[in-house]
């Protein structure tokens, strides 16, 4: 796993159980704003995950595809303030994987979040959204680098 993501996972695991949700909220609050170049029209096309979950904007850019490590990946997310958990998931992935090489990103284990010890605090059905989001990013990166 990429060291930046591993250190976040360790950070969560080291926190007291009661404080882990606060840490996720800190990440949610720190999710970088979407750059201006993503037009409002794009944002309007937020992907609605499924009826029980929240709209989420995801953009993936690969710089110098085919370069060292397959290129460098940049990630952009947006989710409404009324969805702090989704924002928190996105912020963890942003902090851990933005700037990763394509190889690093595609090599991230799909179950990396298990070690964050959030399972007692967030229902498994909802927690799975984290791996689903990673899966979506991987597919986008694969598509962006396909020859």
């Amino acid at each position: 796993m990429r060291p930046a993501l591993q250190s976040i996972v360790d950070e969560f695991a080291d926190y007291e159980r009661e404080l882990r949700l606060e840490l996720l909220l800190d990440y949610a609050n720190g999710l970088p704003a979407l750059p201006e170049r993503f037009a409002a029209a794009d944002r309007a096309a937020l992907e609605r995950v499924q009826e029980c979950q929240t709209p989420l904007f995801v953009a993936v850019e690969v710089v110098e595809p085919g370069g060292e490590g397959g290129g460098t990946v940049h990630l952009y997310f947006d989710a409404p303030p009324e969805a702090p958990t989704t924002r928190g998931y996105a912020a963890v992935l942003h902090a851990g994987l933005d700037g990763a090489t394509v190889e690093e990103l595609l090599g991230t284990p799909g179950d990396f979040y298990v070690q964050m010890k959030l399972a007692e605090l967030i229902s498994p059905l909802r927690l799975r959204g984290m791996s689903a989001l990673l899966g979506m990013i991987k597919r986008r990166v694969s598509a962006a680098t396909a020859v």
Partner: protein
Amino acid sequence: MAVERDPESKFDAYAHPERLVTTEWLAARLGTPGLVVAESDEDVLLYSTGHIPGAVKLDWHTDLNDPVTRDYVDAEGFAQLMAAKGITRDTTIVFYGDNNNWWAAYALWVCSLFGHADVRLLDGGRAKWIAEGRELTKDVPSPAPTEYPVVARDDRTLRAFKEDVLAHIGHGRLVDVRSPGEYSGELSHMPDYPQEGAIRTGHIPTANSVPWKRAANEDGTFRSRDELAAIYFDEQGIKSDDKVVAYCRIGERSSHTWFVLKHLLGVADVRNYDGSWVEWGNAVRVPIEK
């Protein structure tokens, strides 16, 4: 009842007008002795970002569910939970939350299983409170612990299990409140997001599709009594003395419809099948229709 009912005229036509309060009514009564406001959300972090002043958090996953068995907390666990939230047996609890009050209705329903008498929903929920620019706070109250009696949960009257639903087919009404795609079985999962684990898709035989959202206005408030009666009584042919079971995927959207049928339309015998499609669509040899 500990606190008088909201005299809002829209509520008068409902079978049980005392089950709803408006944002105006609640805003004027925050801090009233005997009244506890409880927020129950889909999003586990939302309460921490700001909530109605004085409101306690009641989390469907960590508070209301048993951590090991797939079931609700037991009588002792429920009594401890209520005591910790400053709730007595006589307290008026007003529930509100995100997503059109799905989880608020769910928490209200769980409290009803334990026979807590005075439970009400905030019409329009969290979204309406915020849209009206009303006060929010991040201060978490620390209520003085109360004495709450240990009362057994009644799983027969308001709750249906899989076996009950099997026996119910052909003998009562089944209302599937999920989206049309889920009902028809077309929606197994979306490409990027595996659905909440059901191996089979479709619906329970004889169930009618009445998506929960039909009961709600755009602002999340409930439709008027006449509009609801037109949907459930006239169009669906449900009668107030029918036996009805509502279900969705994990029981929260169907709590919304359960509330509508039970408290707003006055159907006497309505149960919520909380196992819902996550159980039915994974169970061996239960009948399924597409």
